[in-house]
């Protein structure tokens, strides 16, 4: 016989509005084995917690049921509450009467009836719970940060400063990310390079950071505290240990490739560094434009390299890293706007995308910082079109958040660098950040013209060949506008990286409907993911500006420290075990486990589970025909009992 206590939370009116809490309590009191049932306004508050703890002592409770919000919200909180009284934390059952009851109905009769059924199910289940002992594992103190943009850099530096070993894995040949492409940053207009490059250099110099550029994670195994990560070092064809960064090779190289860093607006050498301030300052050979790789001869770089660092035989190599925690900060792509044929991007030379314009402003950019059209002339009038592909049900429903502000920044820079008329075509102006509204007002005063209406189409002007016409509806005057301009800047939607799905699977993340990585809880665990020990920071989680990105990076670093600052940590005890007396040796468990936790013991003719490898999915228990596998905390008996309890009412 169990001694069960049932505690029902009002959650203010969140629950009480559509569930009669007192009735649930009265109901619970009639159930077998329930010795006490109580209600409280906020069960998660200190007095609420004390109420539970006192009742555990007073009534010698050996099972506790808390009917409140989702277990994903406060299961851990209440586990701690009961553990503090000496009761095993796994003897807690949460009944979800908020997210899955009170919030999804407006009928108090229905909500109360459902609450009763759920409580009854919990009582059935609670009786069969067993105390479980958490597994304690050693924690590897090292950290892997994936993505060398500003988020990854900031997180890596912060963690390295605490003395932890950090591996910073970056896909491209340099760290810096998108921020390195920018000229100025809103709203303060400080120079992007001025604030970023010192941090890039700090990464290079930091003794605790192992910077791994031109690398990609190819496999992640293990679990929190003990991840096993395989990183592919892509062949650079330059031995970076030997290279002294003299860049003589780059000067002599005849190969011409496209500069990704300049968004294709400029060429680059086949052997090159992406941009002058790149870190590391050591080059990489681009196979696609290297004369030797294309035609089989050249090897000029090899000849000029005094360090004998060029190595055309170099192969991809794989490095194994062990780490206790991971930060994923893989950033974003801008939407390819070519499919939006109405805007003519890629066809009309006067149509630019936002990142291209960033490069035009940049003194290290293809034009040396001068704003000129592709023919070299200076534009006389410029239209900036917001929300291209975003806030658009046909493309991306979400707001990309930063476009309003960088469009204002563009307008300012255009005004500063040219004498052009600048037009903003916008749906709404969103300037909700510190100093952002002030920046908006400042740009208005700079004689930038704001037209409230989304740019609908860009066509080539018939009257003035070479010029463009922006078609739009001004929603204030409700007039259709045909505005002739020289240059159009598109602000495309910020979208997940093209390979985000692969990254998601590798790190076992969830994604939201737009494809951005999903946080464990939008408010209370914005940097955690569903996978313990893996955190997310920056735009890979959703569009945001640099201050927010940096804040997230710092937050993620702090989250990581909560894990790696300890030698040992507790893991969920909800693993599966085999009852050898009933195992028939069919080995179904061995076949279905994705982690290789079960194995077959030929001597005993039974299967065994290595708990260290088990992640508690319970798949084996369902595949086991004899019910020999006990998926702890989700045993067959417990689930069946809960089903029985739920179906009784």
């Amino acid at each position: 016989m169990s001694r069960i206590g049932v505690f029902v939370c009002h959650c203010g009116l969140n629950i009480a509005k559509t569930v009669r809490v007192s009735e649930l309590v009265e109901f619970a009191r009639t159930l077998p084995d329930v010795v006490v049932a109580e209600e409280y306004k906020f069960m998660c508050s200190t007095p609420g917690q004390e109420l539970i703890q006192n009742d555990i002592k007073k009534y010698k409770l050996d099972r506790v049921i808390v009917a409140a919000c989702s277990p994903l919200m406060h299961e851990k909180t209440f586990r701690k509450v009961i553990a503090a009284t000496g009761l095993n934390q796994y003897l807690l059952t949460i009944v979800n009467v908020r997210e899955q009851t009170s919030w999804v109905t407006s009928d108090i009769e229905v909500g109360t009836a459902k609450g009763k059924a759920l409580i009854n199910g919990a009582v059935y289940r609670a009786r069969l719970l067993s105390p479980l002992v958490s597994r304690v594992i050693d924690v590897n103190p090292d950290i892997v940060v994936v993505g060398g943009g500003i988020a990854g850099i900031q997180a890596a530096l912060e963690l390295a400063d605490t003395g932890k070993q950090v591996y910073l894995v970056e896909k491209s040949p340099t760290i810096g990310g998108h921020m390195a492409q920018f000229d100025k940053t809103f709203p303060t207009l400080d120079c992007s390079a001025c604030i970023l490059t010192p941090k890039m250099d700090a990464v290079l110099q930091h003794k605790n950071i192992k910077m791994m550029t031109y690398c990609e994670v190819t496999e992640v195994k293990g679990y929190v505290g003990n991840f096993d990560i395989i990183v592919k070092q892509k062949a650079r064809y330059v031995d970076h240990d030997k290279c002294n960064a003299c860049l003589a090779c780059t000067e002599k190289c005849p190969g011409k490739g496209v500069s990704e860093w300049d968004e294709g607006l400029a060429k680059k050498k086949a052997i090159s560094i992406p941009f002058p301030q790149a870190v590391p300052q050591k080059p990489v050979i681009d196979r696609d434009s290297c004369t030797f790789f294309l035609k089989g001869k050249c090897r000029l770089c090899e000849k000029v390299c005094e360090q004998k660092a060029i190595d055309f035989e170099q192969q991809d190599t794989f490095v194994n890293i062990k780490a206790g925690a991971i930060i994923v900060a893989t950033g974003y792509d801008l939407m390819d706007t070519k499919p939006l044929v109405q805007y003519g991007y890629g066809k009309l030379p006067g149509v630019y995308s936002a990142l291209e314009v960033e490069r035009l402003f940049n003194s290290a950019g293809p034009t040396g910082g001068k704003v000129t059209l592709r023919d070299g002339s200076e534009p006389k009038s410029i239209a900036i079109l917001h929300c291209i592909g975003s806030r658009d049900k046909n493309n991306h429903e979400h707001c990309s958040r930063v476009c309003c502000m960088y469009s204002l920044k563009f307008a300012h820079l255009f005004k500063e660098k040219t004498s052009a008329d600048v037009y903003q075509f916008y749906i709404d102006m969103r300037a909700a950040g510190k100093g952002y509204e002030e920046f908006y007002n400042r740009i208005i005063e700079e004689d930038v013209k704001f037209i409230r209406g989304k740019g609908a189409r860009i066509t080539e002007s018939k009257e003035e060949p070479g010029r463009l016409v922006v078609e739009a509806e001004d929603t204030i005057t409700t007039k259709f506008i045909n505005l002739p301009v020289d240059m159009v800047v598109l602000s495309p939607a910020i979208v997940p990286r093209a390979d985000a799905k692969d990254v998601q699977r590798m790190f076992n993340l969830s994604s939201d409907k737009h494809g951005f990585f999903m946080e464990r809880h939008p408010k209370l665990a914005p940097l955690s993911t569903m996978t313990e020990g893996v955190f997310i920071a920056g735009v890979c989680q959703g569009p945001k500006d640099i201050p927010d990105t940096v804040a997230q990076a710092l937050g993620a670093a702090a989250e990581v420290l909560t894990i790696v600052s300890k030698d040992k940590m507790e893991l969920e005890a909800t693993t599966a075990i085999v009852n050898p007396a009933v195992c028939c040796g069919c080995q179904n468990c061995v076949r279905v486990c994705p982690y290789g936790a079960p194995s077959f013991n030929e001597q005993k003719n039974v299967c065994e589970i290595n708990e260290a490898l088990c992640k508690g999915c319970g798949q084996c228990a369902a595949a086991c025909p004899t019910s020999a596998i006990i998926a702890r905390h989700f045993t067959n008996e417990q689930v069946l009992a809960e089903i029985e309890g739920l179906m009784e009412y």
Partner: protein
Amino acid sequence: MTNFKQIEENLKKEAKKLLEAGSVAVVLAYTKGADEKHPQPFAAKKADDVANIIFNEYCNHNLARYIVRYAPGTKIAVAVKAADSRAVVVLIQEEKIKRENLILLGIPVSGMKNQKTGEIIDEKTTGGLTNPVVYDVLLGEEIHTGKPVSPYTVLEQYEKMDKDARFAFWKAQFDKCIRCYACRKACPMCYCDPCFIDQTKPRWADKSPQSHGNLMYHLTRFQHLAGRCIDCGECTRACPVDIPLYLFHKKVAKDCEEMFKQAAGMKIEDKLVMVDFRVEDSDKILE
């Protein structure tokens, strides 16, 4: 038609050879029970035992059933008809036995008879194959009757039934069940010990022979045999109250074959469909 006398002779000859040479510890074959019309599975362990081996049209029992009873590593020779050989294939796939420990004495058969009813056993109640799918020695000529027959034709009338009528049919059948468990014990694939139904943690179904417990027992057993049942029909022949279990097994086998593009126990290198998946499996199978 199978020449039963000739096969019996060959079976005895092979068994004797194997036992005399000591290449196997046991030969699984048949002997007479109360009389020759009631043959009994037989484990010949000495050359002298071979004289007791018989083979006739009533030797239906699936001898694969007995293989798992011997300690791992025991060398066993088994007389396998078509269905027996498919059962052996599944046992090998499930790693209950190793192929190298088996010598399969293949028996091509047609014209086997049900000892209770005297009816010819064919694709209506079994998989309907005539030749073993795997063997080391074939004890008779392969039988090719011409056009292949579908073991699933018999299902048509039940598939056509209205759901309520089909439920009424099965309810009446399962209500007859006395829970003697002859079906699972006769089944070569039911080697679990204990069976889920004997479990007390949890008690999946009541032990008393009532409708609901019987339904749970049989449906779960069908699920457990999905993709594994090789349609030998032994469960049905073992049943003392004549529940046509083979119909349900056939239906599940047919569905599995359609969904997973593989019939059970045909090739040793096949994967076990229920503990496997294809990324390209369609959600249509859930409709």
